[in-house]
């Protein structure tokens, strides 16, 4: 029972951290103490936090390196926006339409994750990383050649042609225009929606980790052969983690896309995948709270560094290197844990054992 309580306390801290951050930002917005550029970053930050948390499920919890996470974000973004535009007349209420679109985005990304996962998850380690990278690029290039339009008859989909061959009837609208992507999106995403999505993501991921299925996923990470020997179905749980991760990335993609008026496929390329991976690695593999903090800080950082003009990304890179060195430094880690032991009253410490060692 002690372990259970420890796990749930850690969860409450994570939820609390996000909620407090949300309240502080809301207060800053209402008092007008927040720069407009930062205010524009709020929804992307939420999307990146969800991306980082979901990728952490694959990389940190399942222990398989995925380099194509942005591909699933792309699937979610495009299907989400297509759903949103086609549902415009059916669901006039915007928050509901946004929610439905995010769910559709998540669902289709989950399906894509499952389909890709079935062949890909037979591989391991570096090979799996390379193949996920390939699938990320495949998704990007497919979306680049996709033409989707909507009219009274429903959705029209064409591949590798052009927008005119969609044969839309009068009053029809081209939604995805190949490499031009989607333009004229109504910005529906709000910071509150982003916050809600983060909370839902945390609820799913944290509860999954702390359950029978999550244990099985972590067992595969720690020792696949032993996991098989106790009767844990390897493919099933790998696929479960991968598909959940993809679905959450799809939700993040839909949220992200509906924050901009235009969205193109090349936005969700390899660079974005790596960016998310940086958040995860920096925040700590398997450390959900770390992912949230890393995604937030590293998304704000380039904005904060704007005063350095052309040197902005150089400084960003230097800061990244320094943080990596600092977080991997044993002396610093020891110092911090000593500090924590000294500052926190003993009843808040992890248990008797920790107190004796400290």
């Amino acid at each position: 029972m002690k372990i259970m309580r420890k796990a749930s306390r850690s969860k409450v801290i994570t939820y609390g951290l996000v909620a407090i951050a949300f309240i502080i930002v809301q207060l800053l917005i209402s008092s007008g103490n927040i720069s407009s550029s930062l205010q524009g970053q709020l929804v992307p930050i939420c999307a990146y936090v969800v991306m980082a948390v979901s990728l952490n499920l694959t990389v940190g919890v399942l222990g398989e390196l995925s380099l194509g996470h942005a591909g699933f974000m792309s699937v979610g973004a495009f299907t989400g926006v297509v759903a949103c535009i086609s549902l415009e007349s059916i669901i006039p209420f915007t928050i509901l339409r946004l929610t439905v679109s995010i769910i559709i985005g998540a669902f289709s990304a989950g399906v894509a994750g499952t389909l890709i996962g079935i062949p890909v998850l037979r591989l391991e380690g570096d090979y799996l990383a390379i193949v996920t990278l390939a699938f990320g690029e495949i998704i990007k290039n497919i979306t680049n050649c996709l033409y989707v339009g909507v009219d009274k008859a429903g959705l029209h989909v064409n591949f590798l042609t052009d927008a005119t061959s969609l044969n839309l009837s009068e009053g029809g609208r081209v939604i995805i225009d190949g490499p031009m992507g989607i333009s004229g999106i109504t910005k529906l995403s709000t910071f509150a929606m982003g916050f809600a999505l983060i909370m839902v993501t945390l609820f799913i991921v944290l509860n999954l980790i702390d359950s029978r299925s999550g244990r099985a996923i972590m067992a595969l990470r720690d020792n696949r052969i032993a996991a098989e020997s106790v009767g844990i179905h390897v493919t099933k749980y790998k696929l479960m983690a991968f598909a959940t991760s993809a679905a959450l990335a799809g939700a993040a993609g839909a949220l992200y896309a509906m924050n901009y008026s235009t969205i193109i496929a090349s936005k969700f390329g390899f660079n974005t995948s790596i960016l998310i991976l940086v958040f995860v690695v920096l925040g700590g593999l398997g450390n959900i709270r770390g992912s949230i903090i890393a995604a937030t800080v590293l998304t704000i950082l380039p904005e904060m560094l704007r005063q350095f003009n052309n040197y902005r990304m150089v400084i960003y890179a230097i800061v990244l290197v320094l943080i990596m060195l600092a977080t991997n430094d044993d002396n610093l880690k020891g110092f911090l844990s000593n500090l924590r032991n000294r500052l926190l009253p003993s009843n808040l410490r992890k248990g008797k054992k920790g107190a004796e060692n400290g």
Partner: protein
Amino acid sequence: MDKAKRPETKMVPVPSTNLVPERDVDKLPVLEARNLGIEFGGLTALAGFNMAIGRTEIAGLIGPNGAGKTTVFNLLTKVYQPTHGTILLDGRDTNNMTTVQINKAGIARTFQNIRLFSNLSVEDNVKLGLHNNINYGMWNGILRLPAYWKGERRAHEQAMELLSIFDMQDLAGNRAGSLPYGAQRRLEIVRALATKPLLLLLDEPAAGMNPSETAELMENIVKIRDTLQIAIILIEHDMNLVMGICEGICVLNFGKIIAKGTPREIRNNPQVIEAYLGKKKEG
């Protein structure tokens, strides 16, 4: 360990002419390997392996390094698919079963080089052994439905009960990788037992243990067999342990069985002595 106190079991043949303890002879052998063999690209690692294990037998598998002992375990658990022969588990042919299916069918094992889920807690390791005995799905877990609470409560109770076999309840919250070596070996046995097997395979359970730990382990292996009424096959180099608790012993050398019998027969078998110590010079 007082060997004199433990009476030697009489081994009697079953229809396949393999030997099982007399008390198990009326029941179907829990495991029967017939003419089992495997070749790795032309290299014969094991050939003509015949063995029957009684339902409550403790059997020993011994032999010099590289004799093929662990290969036998890997064949029984289908880490490798055998190229020859049949394995009958509880009378069922295990042909084409996977490792996972074998475990569900009733074989659990430990490993020569310990394979724990080292980043998880001791309790979680045992709960993973219970994985197929607590059945609630992914959504029950995520949404924290009643099935989750019921399943987890049962898992916790069962895990604690299993840990109590080796008096390890106090370690439940520790990280498995941080345990001392002997405790890690014991935890591996507990995890294997959690899968509720009919047959437990122990690969060098006493490796790295000191004599008093080994003696305690011997007591515990017998206790496990007596309370759970399961069969146990163990690979071990510690002859005190093997001769002390095994009823039937099978000696392997270069992938072939060179002797089978009770501890007393094995101890005096010239071929076994030769395999271990080498041939006496003529003249």
